[in-house]
């Protein structure tokens, strides 16, 4: 039944199983249960209870239960508002427009005045209704009770009046002395904040703003300045690109604007695009570590960092040859199948519809990328320099210079806003030492972090949900965010603080309105301010018409660029090359204290609560390193000891470690989680480079990482299906034939023995009664070709459904509570197809597929059959219901679930100080969804298809006296998926999107052959790659030949 004869695996243990692993897989529980011993009475004496003791305990137990039942019914209070705000009706949520921390538009759901959930804002042209994992998780930071609750003056809690008096006096002194006041910020694209900073600088003429991004894009900015005299990060249009070539740019995970890019990327690869055009974009990734983006690529080539620049020169040469431009004789590495020359040829064929990006922060590399894109005439179509991105503006050279100035003593005051250089600056120790030479140090941090620990003043800023926020993420796109709650603690907007210190103590709202009235609305068009403002608050966004993207030609000499890249490559080359990268979940470290993000598995390695050294299996074997061995990584005058994981797809001879871990003053969830690897970032020619030559040595220790990867073994079953785009074009059901055969079998001759042998007796013999599907029948379609595996849906689900965080130890025991997981499957690149590196190659070429896995709401659910108390049963609307108050925890259902999506509550996570994350304190509880029960110990839980949203959607339709429309009910995972990979709806409505998708030729059901009739259809993954050498003809024919030989 396999649609292809690839072998998928989830972890290397599964690919090369040891006897222990195999034994473990066969067992229901990972740990030993002493059942046999107890039954045979051979267990140690303590576990055998004499009859009298048993009776005593029984009597005591019954008595205790009886006594406990005699409790008086508690008296509950109902406390109404004294004066109810007009817009609040208890029980009904309100939505407000907001701006996420990463500067895209969101909607904030509030209940009784408390923000409880972040949703996507479909009006936002950047995110297009998507939200990433960090955006979802940020709502719990609002209720973090360990944040500063008032301003600090010289380390002691103080009042705003005292702080203001002190700061004004000190700043005036510094200003008078002529020393610099440096405002060190991250990239700010908020028009109002920038105006406030300008006002501040006006009031203190010695003040300057230095923009510092821990993960910097100054290479791109400087390259564009050099190439086209435009110092900007351009807007990339992945939705216009038919061929994407990325050199280490993780644009789906972390690079510049991942939510935006994921939406653009998916729009060229999703079901609709495939159906309409029979084609999809093609994506070739050259990279060192297996990134989220690389895992989605059609062809992925592992490259050592020292070779990446040379490969790019090779690509340039090949393109230039085709374009008739200047070439350089540099020895370039070549990969199997002459992939670079082939890529250049393809690029040339897709001139104007292709895009080359590079993740490097090296200005030379970026100039070369500009040259390639210019030769390919991509400017104006896939790259827009005129409506540039405003998301990153950091200037590495200025930061390097700032440290020098601080050391020279010319900086009199330092105001730190939104950055944490004592943690994230590569030479953090140097920076911290230099701080001592600055007389006045002020921070807007939410807590005493690594940088602000010994600052004179900490003036804590509001959480973004408490403040008026605005943003201009792209030139001409303006977003606004309203405060959704009164400030919880005695904090103050940083902008307001700056204005107060600049002797302009206006209400910040008035200030924001004024900025919009005077600078933004005039750009958008004439109108009455109040109307424009009201409309803005309703939509959250206004746009200017924008200018047409121009095409640019590249006319600089590349000689020095090429020689710089060659020299850098030589310098980086070593026995072991290290890359460090921004982590998809914790980002550059500012999300480290968010327990939801710590527990969200890394999208590729599935490791939680730690960073680690990723290394390829072959290289590790040669070094004598096994998985989980702790190694010491040394280089750049720094060393860390971290456990190793064997990462398929990691370039040979390299190791990679995620940034953002190892915080020491992030808060209780983020402190001492993993190790800080920022010091490995090298500063080359004034810019931050994320690679270095290192050495690795075993320390002899071993640490088991908390990984969700091997929890759910594939057992060699046909769970993942994929095909190639040409096979799809010939036969749209390529890859999912199994499903179509199964669908037909009931109609065909029941006595077809061959079919029965092949598919079992499905539909011919059935344990369950077929139920009529009346009324609504809820179902879901997941497009495996759109899903990037980013994990945003998991966090959205966690917050919507009050799913508990369990912590590293419990994840190690395989007890994570996530209702929705994303299974990641590896497959070896087949011989004879693109990306195959050869059998004796040191590079392990692998392909990856991500598959969201949640309760399948089977119509014939096996879990329901085995529940002794009918705590889980089926609804007439096709839901597999779970009644927590009836469940008493036999876990039979989990055992009988073919998809392993049921999670058991081993503890009372919500009221347990052992799980000190957010649910156990009164502040943290405020984020819980009041419409969903917080489960207690001893019950099973699982995805409910967001039944609370279904019920709310139905009720809304009834109240409005109308039929339910498609789209009225959106599950939490669906609502904010940046790629729109998840579609939920009523499959009995033939016009609904989901029923159309489920009738798509690509649809198949996971483990369909066991006859459980799952309610979630998956759409086959399609890869845009071809065989290098045609072996048995093409596409569909080939597929059938394979299918036959397989069956």
């Amino acid at each position, binding site marked *: 039944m396999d649609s292809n004869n690839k072998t998928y695996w989830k972890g290397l243990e599964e690919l090369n199983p040891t006897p222990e692993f195999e034994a473990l897989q066969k067992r229901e529980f990972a740990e030993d249960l002493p059942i046999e011993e107890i039954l045979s009475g051979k267990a140690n004496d303590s576990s055998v209870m004499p009859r009298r003791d048993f009776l005593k305990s029984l009597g005591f137990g019954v008595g205790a239960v009886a006594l406990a039942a005699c409790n008086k019914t508690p008296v*509950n209070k*109902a406390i109404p508002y*004294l004066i109810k705000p007009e817009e609040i009706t208890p029980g009904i949520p309100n939505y407000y427009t907001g701006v996420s921390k990463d500067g895209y538009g969101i909607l904030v759901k509030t209940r009784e005045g408390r923000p409880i959930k972040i949703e996507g804002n479909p009006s936002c042209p950047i995110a297009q209704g998507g939200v990433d994992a960090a955006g979802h998780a940020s709502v719990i930071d609002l209720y973090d009770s360990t944040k500063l609750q008032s301003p600090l003056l010289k380390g002691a809690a103080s009042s705003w009046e005292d702080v203001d008096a002190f700061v004004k006096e000190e700043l005036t002194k510094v200003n008078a002395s002529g020393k610099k006041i440096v405002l060190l910020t991250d990239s700010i694209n908020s028009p109002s904040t920038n105006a406030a900073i300008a006002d501040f600088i006006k009031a203190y003429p010695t003040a300057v703003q230095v923009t510092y991004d821990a993960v910097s894009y100054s290479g791109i900015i400087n390259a564009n300045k050099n190439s086209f005299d435009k110092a900007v990060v351009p807007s990339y249009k992945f939705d216009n690109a038919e061929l994407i070539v990325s050199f280490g740019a993780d644009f789906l995970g972390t690079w510049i604007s991942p939510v935006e890019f994921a939406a653009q990327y998916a729009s060229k690869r999703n079901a609709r695009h495939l159906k309409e055009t029979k084609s999809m974009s093609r994506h070739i990734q050259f990279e060192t570590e297996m990134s989220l983006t690389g895992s989605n690529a059609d062809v992925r080539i592992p490259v050592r960092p020292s070779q990446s620049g040379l490969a790019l020169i090779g690509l340039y040469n090949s393109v230039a040859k085709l374009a008739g431009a200047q070439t350089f004789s540099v020895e370039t590495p070549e990969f199997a199948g002459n992939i670079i020359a082939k890529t250049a040829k393809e690029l040339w064929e897709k001139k104007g519809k292709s895009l080359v990006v590079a993740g490097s922060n090296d200005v030379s590399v970026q100039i070369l990328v500009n040259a390639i894109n210019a030769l390919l005439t991509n400017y104006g179509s896939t790259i827009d320099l005129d409506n540039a991105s405003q998301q990153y503006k950091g200037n590495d050279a200025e930061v390097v210079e700032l440290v020098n100035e601080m050391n020279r003593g010319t900086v009199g005051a330092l105001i730190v806003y939104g950055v944490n250089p004592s943690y994230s600056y590569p030479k953090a120790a140097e920076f911290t030492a230099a701080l001592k030479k600055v007389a006045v140090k002020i921070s807007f941090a939410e807590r005493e972090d690594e940088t602000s620990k010994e600052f004179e003043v900490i003036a804590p800023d509001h959480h973004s949900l408490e403040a008026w926020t605005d943003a201009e993420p792209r030139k001409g796109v303006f977003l606004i965010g309203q405060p959704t709650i009164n400030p919880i603690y005695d904090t103050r907007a940083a902008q307001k603080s700056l204005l107060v210190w600049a002797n302009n103590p206006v209400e910040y709202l008035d200030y924001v309105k004024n900025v919009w009235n005077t600078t933004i609305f005039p750009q958008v068009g004439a109108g009455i301010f109040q109307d424009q403002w009201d409309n803005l608050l309703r939509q959250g966004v206004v746009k200017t018409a924008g200018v047409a993207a121009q095409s640019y030609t590249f006319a600089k000499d590349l000689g020095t660029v090429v020689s710089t890249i060659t020299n850098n490559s030589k310098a980086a080359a070593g026995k072991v090359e290290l890359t460090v990268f921004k982590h998809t979940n914790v980002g550059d470290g500012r999300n480290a204290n968010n327990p939801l993000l710590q527990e969200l598995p890394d999208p590729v390695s599935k490791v939680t609560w730690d960073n680690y050294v990723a290394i390829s299996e072959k290289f590790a074997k040669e070094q004598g390193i096994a998985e989980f061995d702790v190694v010491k990584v040394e280089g750049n005058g720094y060393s860390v000891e971290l456990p190793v994981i064997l990462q398929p797809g990691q370039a040979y001879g390299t190791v990679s470690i995620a940034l953002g871990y190892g915080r020491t003053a992030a808060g209780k969830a983020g402190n001492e989680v993993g190790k800080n690897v920022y010091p490995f970032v090298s500063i080359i020619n004034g810019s931050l480079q994320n690679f270095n030559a290192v050495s690795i040595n075993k320390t002899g220790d071993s640490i088991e990482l908390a990984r969700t990867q091997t929890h759910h073994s594939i057992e060699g079953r046909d769970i993942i299906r994929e095909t190639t785009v040409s096979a799809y074009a010939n036969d749209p059901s390529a890859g999912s034939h199994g499903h179509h055969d199964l669908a037909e079998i009931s109609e065909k001759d029941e006595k077809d023995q061959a079919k029965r042998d092949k598919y079992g007796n499905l539909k011919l013999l059935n344990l369950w009664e077929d139920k009529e599907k009346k009324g609504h029948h809820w179902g879901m379609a997941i497009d495996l070709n759109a899903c990037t595996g980013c994990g945003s849906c998991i966090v959205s689900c966690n917050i919507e459904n009050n799913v508990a965080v369990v912590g590293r130890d419990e994840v190690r025991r395989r007890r994570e509570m996530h209702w929705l997981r994303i299974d990641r499957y590896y497959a070896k690149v087949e011989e004879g197809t693109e990306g195959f590196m050869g059998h004796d190659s040191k590079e392990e070429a692998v392909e990856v597929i991500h598959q969201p896995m949640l309760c399948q709401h089977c119509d014939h659910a096996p879990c329901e059959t085995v529940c002794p108390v009918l705590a889980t049963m089926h609804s007439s609307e096709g839901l597999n219901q779970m*009644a927590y*108050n009836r469940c008493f925890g036999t876990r039979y259902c989990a055992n009988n679930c073919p998809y392993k999506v049921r999670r058991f509550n081993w503890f009372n996570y919500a009221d347990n100080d052992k799980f000190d994350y957010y649910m156990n304190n009164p502040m943290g509880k405020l984020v819980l969804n009041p419409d969903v*029960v917080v489960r207690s110990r001893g019950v099973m839980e699982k995805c409910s298809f967001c039944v609370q949203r279904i*019920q709310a959607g139905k009720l809304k*339709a009834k109240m409005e006296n109308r039929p339910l429309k498609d789209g009225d009910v959106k599950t939490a995972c669906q609502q904010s998926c940046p790629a729109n990979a998840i579609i939920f709806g009523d499959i009995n409505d033939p016009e609904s999107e989901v029923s159309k998708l489920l009738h798509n030729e690509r649809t198949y059901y996971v483990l369909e052959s066991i006859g459980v009739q799952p309610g979630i259809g998956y759409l086959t993954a399609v890869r845009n790659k071809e065989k290098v050498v045609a072996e048995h003809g093409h596409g569909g024919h080939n597929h059938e030949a394979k299918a036959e030989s397989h069956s």
Partner: protein
Amino acid sequence: MSKNSNVFLKTCLKKGVLILTIAFLSVAQAFAADPKEGETLFKANCTACHAVGKRVTGPDLKNVDQRHDEAWLVKWVHDSQAMVKGGDAAAVKVFGEFSQQVMPSFANLSEDNVKSILAYIKQEGEALDKKAAAAPAGGATAADSGTSSYTIFGLLGLVVVLFLVIVVLNRVIKTLEQLVLTRKAEGSISETEEEEEAVPSKFVQTIKILASNKKVIALSIVAVLVVGSAWSWKEMWEVGVTQNYQPAQPIKFSHKVHAGVNQINCQYCHSGAWKSKNASIPSANVCMNCHNQINEYKGEALVDADGEKIDGTAEIQKIYQALDYDPATQKYGTSQRPIEWVRIHNLPDFAYFNHSQHVKVAEESIRAAKGLKAEDPVCYACHGEVAKMDEVYQASQLTMQWCVDCHRSTEMKHAPKNHYYDGMVELHEKIKKGEKVTVAQMGGLECAKCHY
């Protein structure tokens, strides 16, 4: 005891006042100004903003005839704004004092009408003065402390009586003991004689025979067991069932007065019930919509569940306390504290109940199922006749069985009219045929309808 005497005194006083008023009325009738007519006019036109004896929205009208002359007052009533604009010093002063609130013009009132009103005001003012003069003599101040002393005295009395009983019983015991001792000493009764004397009666004999019969014993044990288990079974089902729960509330709010006597619609206060899952307890500002005017209770006497009398006016004051509101100046202070009502209807956390689904969507079906009268609100279906309750209690069981029973029997009467059900052809056909379609048949018994 003191309470009774108070009541008696108060009745006397009231009667006295009444007699005096009647006497006064008969005298006053001779004038053109008719206080009786004035009373009607006053209640129809003036009470929205004025009262005699206290300041409401407008000034206290007591002794208004002494503050201004009659002609001025007539002019003022007819068009106060003209006087203010005309610069009349007294008019400007009053206008300023009452935060420039415009008194509407009553041009429709004739001069005689105004005079009648003034006569009524004067009469009321005098009646108030007399009442005030009588009050200290009547010892009305004692009324407040009634309840607590009553209980204490009662308890003390009980203690004394019990003590006396103990003393008397002790005495009796001692006397009897002594009697026995003296008789024993005398040897007049031997113990054997005593036994012989006690000849068992027939009844006792039968009992003894029955008690020695094993079958009877077995049968009795079985009977006791059966009755006992039946009883405990019934009792156990009711563990945690809080039907008829009627806690004392921080404000002795009477639904009877509001929803019954004054016919205020349930939605006026419980506005959430029609649009949200929560019926919502009204916030104090909703109370103030009426109670910024109505600051004393003048209706029928109220008693609480224990038969204690309730001072309605004092209860209204509690709203003011919560809001830190000063009725005299009509200003809100800053030390506001929410009112902590005791929740009567408690559903467990794992049960989701939505008022709007029942009250708005399914109103017709519920009315039919519960046989509610057309004039009764649908709320009665579960909350009982709230408009007849002074203190609300939990009228229904609120158990799952209670919910489910209703879902089993209630027909989907509302479905044909609500377009939500348009696509459900089968449902419509059944209803057309006159078949019974219950909530349960529509999935109303499925767990995830209420538990998620």
